[in-house]
């Protein structure tokens, strides 16, 4: 239970613990009154009262279908929905609000790009003469869509491997990304390893060969300032539920000219300009990619979430998490038999830490931690190739967010001690 004073980062890096009061779930108790220690933030985040209020206000006061109405409610709902788009655009510094497409989650955003490229005309078209590049540390949601595209078009799927210390191996970058490459899609922050990837090197090479770049920012947007212009990517995908927003909402940002040139994916209401039985024309982006009634309340909730995060400050949130992560890495490395899978320093890493504990299976680690009220995730974390790469069946993963505390890190370390005793 001792917090090692020598390891403490300057306390002024930490956010005021008062923000925990904004999150009703953090008061939840489990297993006979144990206060929950929620360390499963890479899976999904908890929601502040402000976001829940926005959802309730939407449903109780303004609920209507968007766009096609002249009545007051329809106008209010449309203003709220499109207002959320403005907020998200500002949050990621998009040059234009029309570059923000709302989807149901990051997975849909990633599939959307894969499908657009499969149906695109030249110069974007992915076909049997072209190549797709991903990495070995992708989330399944950034692997399977490309496997499907590759199977269906004959394009070749290639990837960057990993170094022993959990970073991308870019030593063969010129062989992996070639003149045949049409798209390079990679994760900004790995959800299993915690690694923050070197965007610039990859983007530079992709631009050299004229390939498009898609960045999976699902584990980045919640935790650090995101500036799509600075990233210099063509597309950026992320998901609402990991960044204090509701489930059921994701974002795809894309460069305007691409969104204009690329073909639609899902067809239906809202995405059209004019329809006859013989043919249809499509609305301009972003609507072209939003078929059917969109996740209206969920977009409004995401808007409230980015307001909440911005009010605190993404740089402050990043600093807080860096402090927590540094402390956690150090303390975890003191646990006997514990092996961190991924970078073992807090530099260029996010707030998700995967580890193994001797030969105790992660399932058993998670179970015993749960009994103490500590919620971590165990398994492949939708990144099975990483487990294969490191020859491990699975990992236990603790992941932090803006409301995580040093005391929760201590609770985790104590909990692991208990796990070792239990299976000792």
């Amino acid at each position, binding site marked *: 239970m001792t917090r090692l004073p020598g390891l403490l980062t300057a306390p002024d890096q930490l956010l005021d613990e008062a923000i925990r009061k904004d999150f009703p779930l953090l008061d939840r108790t489990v297993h006979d009154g144990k206060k929950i220690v929620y360390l499963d933030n890479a899976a999904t985040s908890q929601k502040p009262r402000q976001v829940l209020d926005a959802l309730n206000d939407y449903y109780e006061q303004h609920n209507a279908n968007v766009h096609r109405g*002249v009545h007051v409610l329809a106008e209010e709902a*449309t*203003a709220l929905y499109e207002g959320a788009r403005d907020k998200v655009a500002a949050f990621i510094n998009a040059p234009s609000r029309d570059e923000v497409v709302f989807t149901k989650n990051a997975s849909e955003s990633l599939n959307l790009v894969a499908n657009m490229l499969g149906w695109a005309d030249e110069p974007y078209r992915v076909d049997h003469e072209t190549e797709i590049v991903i990495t070995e540390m992708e989330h399944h949601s950034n692997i399977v869509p490309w496997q499907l595209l590759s199977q269906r078009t004959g394009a070749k799927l290639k990837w960057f491997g990993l170094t022993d210390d959990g970073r991308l191996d870019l030593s063969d970058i010129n062989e992996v990304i070639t003149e045949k490459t049409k798209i390079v899609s990679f994760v900004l922050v790995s959800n299993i390893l915690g690694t923050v990837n070197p965007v610039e090197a990859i983007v530079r090479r992709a631009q050299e060969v004229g390939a498009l770049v898609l960045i999976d920012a699902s584990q980045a947007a919640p935790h650090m300032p995101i500036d799509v212009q600075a990233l210099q990517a063509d597309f950026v995908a992320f998901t609402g539920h990991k960044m204090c927003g509701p489930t059921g909402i994701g974002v795809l940002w894309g460069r305007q000219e691409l969104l204009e040139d690329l073909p639609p994916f899902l067809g239906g209401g809202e995405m059209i*300009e004019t329809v006859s039985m013989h043919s249809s024309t499509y609305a301009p982006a972003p609507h072209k990619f939003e078929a059917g009634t969109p996740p209206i309340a969920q977009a409004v909730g995401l808007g409230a979430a980015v307001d909440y995060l911005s009010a605190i400050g993404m740089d402050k949130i990043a600093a807080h998490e860096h402090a927590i992560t540094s402390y956690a890495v150090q303390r975890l490395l003191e646990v006997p038999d514990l092996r961190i899978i991924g970078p073992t320093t807090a530099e260029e890493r996010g707030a998700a830490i995967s580890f193994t504990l001797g030969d105790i299976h992660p399932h058993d680690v998670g179970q015993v931690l749960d009994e103490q009220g500590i919620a971590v995730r165990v398994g492949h974390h939708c990144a099975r190739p990483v487990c294969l790469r490191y020859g491990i069946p699975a990992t236990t993963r603790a992941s932090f967010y803006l409301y995580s505390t040093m005391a929760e890190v201590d609770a985790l370390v104590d909990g692991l001690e208990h796990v070792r005793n239990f299976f000792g």
Partner: protein
Amino acid sequence: MKLDSMYQDVILDHYKHPHGRGLRDGDAEVHHVNPTCGDEITLRVRYDGSRIADVSYEGQGCSISQASASVLNDLLVGKELAEAQKIQGTFLELMQSKGQLEPDDAMEEVLEDAVAFAGVSKYPARVKCALLSWMAWKDATAQALDGPAQKETA
């Protein structure tokens, strides 16, 4: 009643008795649609050098979009392009004002009957109706002048 601020008599008059309606000869034709309500307009412009010789149109839509096309015809036909663009810009400014802009004398002088649309700017869903013909005119003008113009200077 609030509605009267949108449906000014001037607007209803133009709606019931549209000016310059019907398609006549032109240098370019465009077809614009407002997908959120289905209003449609086909519009042609004819230029005499940089003078607008004619704006003719046909379409279907609500009182606001129809009246707006009629007012456009009144205001722009016979004008020099530069002046027409100024009028268009002023109308756009008024329509995007969300009801916050009280047209002053200078604006009234530029917009004439079109100031009657000030009340429409409070209704976001209707702003697009009011702008439909103006956007079509801008597009048609670009086609009429750019196309040949570029060819000539190239």
